[in-house]
């Protein structure tokens, strides 16, 4: 299997906190890759470094063999990495449909001139944006909410909207930061189906999740972070039995 994303010796420090310490991992094309670890382990920081929101102190990240160093967030999105946020970040006063339409920005071109003169090309592009956005809302199952303001959606629907918006950028790698947080059992089950569907469509998924059952059931491989260090990386069955991992979780919840 070819490697889609490769991180080598990534480090990030906040003041006295070493949030990431020499983290190396590689994600293969088409797999669901889990990133777990206790609170404050550095999972979200890894996402932020990966997507160019934070500059890393050391190391390099290769995406499709090309370095992502110095890339700004919008260039990372253009390269084909999309993400969701742990604390949902939608455009609250835009409709659900518009949120997804914003996601199309990076794959479309119309500028001020096109907008003002409504050239034929612009009209066609705009129609395509709208069509694709509606398709994606269908895909994640919230099409009936299309015209509602994002901030009026239920929590679970907001999480799904964020996924639709990320998918609108046509990513090769979709990074989900705790997508099941705050979801009830039904919603989590639907999310699980959604992620499996994405995988079936050939997308590579990087998943941060605290719901251990979900992670272990979904992921092809799992990496465990603890105090900014990767302490394990393997298939779920092996990781689950790893003494270091069990200790990191204080022997408890992985059982």
């Amino acid at each position: 299997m070819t490697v889609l994303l490769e991180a080598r010796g990534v480090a990030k420090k906040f003041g006295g906190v070493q949030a990431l310490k020499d983290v190396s991992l590689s994600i293969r094309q088409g797999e669901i890759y889990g990133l777990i670890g206790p609170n404050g382990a550095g999972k979200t920081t890894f996402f932020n470094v990966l997507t160019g929101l934070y500059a890393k102190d050391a190391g390099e990240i290769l995406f499709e063999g090309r370095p992502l160093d110095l890339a700004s967030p919008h260039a990372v999105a253009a390269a084909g990495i999309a993400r969701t946020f742990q604390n949902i970040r939608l455009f609250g006063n835009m409709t659900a449909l518009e949120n997804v339409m914003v996601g199309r920005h990076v794959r479309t071109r119309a500028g001020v001139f096109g907008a003002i003169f409504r050239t034929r090309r612009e009209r066609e592009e705009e129609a395509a944006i709208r069509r694709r956005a509606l398709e994606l809302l269908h895909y994640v199952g919230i099409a009936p909410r299309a015209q509602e303001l994002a901030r009026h959606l239920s929590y679970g629907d907001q999480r799904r909207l964020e996924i639709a918006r990320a998918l609108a950028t046509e990513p090769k790698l979709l990074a989900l930061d705790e997508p099941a947080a705050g979801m009830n059992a039904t919603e989590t089950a639907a999310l699980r189906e959604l992620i499996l569907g994405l995988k079936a469509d050939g997308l590579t998924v990087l998943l941060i999740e605290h719901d251990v059952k979900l992670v272990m059931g979904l992921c092809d491989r799992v990496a465990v972070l603890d105090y900014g260090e990767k302490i394990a990386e393997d298939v779920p069955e092996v990781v689950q039995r790893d003494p270091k991992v069990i200790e990191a979780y204080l022997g408890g919840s992985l059982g």
Partner: protein
Amino acid sequence: MKQRERLGLILVAATLLVLPFVLAEIGTAWVRIANLAILFVFLSLGLNIVVGMAGLLDLGYVAFYAVGAYPWALLASPHFGLHLPFWVILPLGALLAGLAGAVLGAPTLRLRGDYLAIVTLGFGEIVRIFMNNLSAPFNITNGPKGITRIDGLSIGPFSFTSTDTFLGLSFSGPIKYYYVLLLLLLVIIVVNLRLADSRIGRAWVAIREDELAAKACGIDTRNVKLLAFAMGASFGGIAGGMFAAMQGFVSPESFVLNESIMILAMVVLGGMGNVWGVIAGALLLSFVPELLRYTVEPLQKALLGRLVIEPEVLRMLLFGAALVLSMRYRPAGLWPESRHRREMKERLA
């Protein structure tokens, strides 16, 4: 429904077309007031792109009004003895204002909220002070005395300053300007509505709503913000050019901080981001003070026999009260954007 809308549109259009003649009956001053009100609609729509859509607080917007007014004043007046036609100087003013917008935007891209407000406020003052002081060693702007005898608008042999009689109706200068401004207004509204409902317009709103998420969606926030500054400023430039032509006189005094604040108040009161709300805000804050000026004095004299409160004092009092009340009861403006959206949805459903 459809028919009622069409009827409403025809009524509005007819009202707008006969309005200057009705106003002229009351007094030519009122036609001028209407013209200035339309200029303020241009200005608020321009500022609305920056503040309302992109969420970038700009307290020095009047600088772009000045940057649009001065090219016209300098290139079409006896000051330099140049008399360039409108189709050169109006676009030039818009272009220069747009450039000035980008110049202001570039160093402030990383600033938000209060910090951005302070820098833009400073920028507005700097431009005014420049206009005030660029009279020596070379006299460019004529300093605080300003520039007089500016050419009015003329299209070919057709001049907008003189009075013409047509079909038995007397078209005075202000009335002719009114129609030009109305036409320009129509264009500017269409441009704004189209921008708001486009890829770029959505990117502006996305930045206002959550800049970080906008970046993660692949929006180059730097370019898109610069575009907002430049587009917004160019509307100010057009308004400035028309202002110079209509007044025949400009001086730095027309471009003080108070004007920036007034324009901002129009945007905020009307409903940030929503084109129709902003238009309403601009008209309201343009006309109400003038109405007061013409009614308060006679009314007090008639009722109380003497003048108790000066109109100017009352104007500021009411202005303050209106802002405080709208902050308290309608913080999103009289016609806020999201409400408008929901209404649209209900109409579509």
